[in-house]
């Protein structure tokens, strides 16, 4: 049963990817990567879209990585086991399953309007950070839990302070797992469309962002727009853009696997 289930999953995925590559590969070229969007499908490119995606991802990482890992360490190492921390824990796991458009609405209300950031990269990155924070926190805690308690005891026995133990023993030992969690969370963020549309990602932005308060577009929004056009050529463009997006996601997941393996093989006690 299990084999059939996993094979059928892979087959469906392979059909999707094969179909997209079959459709989109003809449009994939250097020009496609460096040109601006255009009303002519053949001259249209995704330059501003992937630039927007890169900007959004860099800022999402800058915000969510320290916050998420910090929160994970606090909850696992410092927080006392009481009702309050139970309450936090349940909330964090629940937040991980909230539909992404809700985060978009929250972002629109808080970052775009209340904090006056406008439809900017910063507002988009903050919204995506909220979206992936629960995933990062949970995976950080799991990674820390996986460190054998003998390491902790040994470090304490040698007179290391709590923070020294965390910084020099626990973190290096669990960092592979933490990074994997962070990168998988970021791979989720990169494909999000709905919350960014709500926050105000535009479609035609003929300039690359120059600072975090600039307006932006991202790859999934560009793809969404092209798919709904009447002209067949735009749908081919969308397929080509999907290949690029898939490529970026695969690279990120590849990095995650590499880092995990590297850290795991390094850690020997």
């Amino acid at each position, binding site marked *: 049963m299990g084999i059939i289930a996993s094979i059928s999953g892979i087959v469906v995925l392979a059909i999707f990817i094969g179909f997209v590559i079959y459709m989109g590969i003809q449009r994939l070229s250097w020009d496609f990567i460096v040109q601006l969007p255009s*009303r002519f499908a053949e001259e249209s490119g995704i330059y501003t879209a992937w630039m927007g995606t890169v900007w959004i991802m860099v800022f999402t990482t800058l915000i969510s990585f320290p916050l998420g890992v910090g929160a994970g360490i606090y909850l696992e190492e410092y927080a006392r086991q009481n009702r309050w921390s139970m309450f936090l824990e349940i909330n964090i796991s629940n937040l991980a399953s909230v539909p992404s458009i809700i985060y978009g609405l929250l972002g629109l209300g808080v970052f775009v309007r209340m904090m006056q950031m406008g439809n900017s990269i910063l507002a988009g990155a903050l919204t995506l950070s909220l979206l992936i924070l629960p995933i990062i926190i949970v995976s950080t805690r799991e990674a820390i839990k996986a460190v054998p308690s003998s390491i902790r005891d040994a470090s304490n026995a040698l007179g290391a302070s709590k923070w020294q133990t965390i910084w020099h023993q626990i973190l*290096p030992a669990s960092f592979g797992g933490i990074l994997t969690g962070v990168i998988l969370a970021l791979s989720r963020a990169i494909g999000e469309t709905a919350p960014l549309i709500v926050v105000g990602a535009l479609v035609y932005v003929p300039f690359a962002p120059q600072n975090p308060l600039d307006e932006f577009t991202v790859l999934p929004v560009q793809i969404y727009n092209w798919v709904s*056009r009447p002209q067949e050529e735009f749908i081919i463009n969308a397929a080509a853009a999907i290949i690029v997006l898939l490529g970026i996601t695969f690279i990120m997941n590849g990095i995650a696997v590499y880092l995990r393996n590297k850290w795991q093989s390094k850690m020997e006690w």
Partner: protein
Amino acid sequence: MVKKIFTLILFGGLFLYSCGSGGSQQEIKIDGSGTVYPITEAVAEEFRKVEPDIRVSVGSSGSGAGFRKFTRGETDISNSSREISEEEKQLAEKNGTEYQQFSIALDGISIVVHPDNDWVNTLTPEELNKIWKADSEVQQWSDIREGWPDEEIRLYGPNTAHGTYDFFTETINGESGASRTDYNAVADYNVAVQGISSDKYSLGYFGLAYYEENAEKLKIIGIDAGDGAVEPSLQTVKNNTYKPLSRSLYIYVAKNAAQRPAVQKFVEFYFNNAGELAQDVGYVPMPDEDYEAQKSAFRSFVSDTVAAN
């Protein structure tokens, strides 16, 4: 190693940040209808060749969502495939946003069926109303006209987020938003095209461009509003013989924005080129004199705003 990664990320951010060279503050923000989006995108694309320093960005969040931002003063120009509603007018008033509406192109809503459908060639607005009204009793083709097959009719149309839905329901059912709800409401018209072209007993409506791109997969229905059946086409929409489903597409320009030379240049450029560009992307241009009329209306709107200050 942990430190290294933190530093790397930090410097990555700083690097991107420093790439910025300030840039000019001549920005024009546009959002609104997904139907009008391709025209505005085309105009913005051409405008950029003439005025590379003016940064025009265009969104496509839908007529309604566009007006929500526009009435709050968050955008300079709003694309719309319908006229602004009473509610939205009140919002604008409350927020002190003044604006004017300009027509920029035409579109015909096409009624389409499967190509193997050999019994329907024309429909009247009354029959369309009978099919689509809120409490419609039409379940089978034979419910529309005697002699048509006793087969279930499957309907496709845009969902409520579309300006096309508002316009169609207002024109055919007499009230914007009044429609039966047991039809396949699509967000993306290509889904409706796919559904209709694979189902002999289906019927649907959407903008002319979607029919023209898929003409071999669909059959178009003429509308008989009393003067014989007329099919939508470039000519019949332009000379207004395709009734009652021809509509104007609009841009709304905010008064504050109209004081800025960049916006003035852009809107003038819009009227000079919209006809040709609209046709490029699948819409119907207005007659030339209408563009001239819109242009002079915009000029007096601008001089009013300037005089008022």
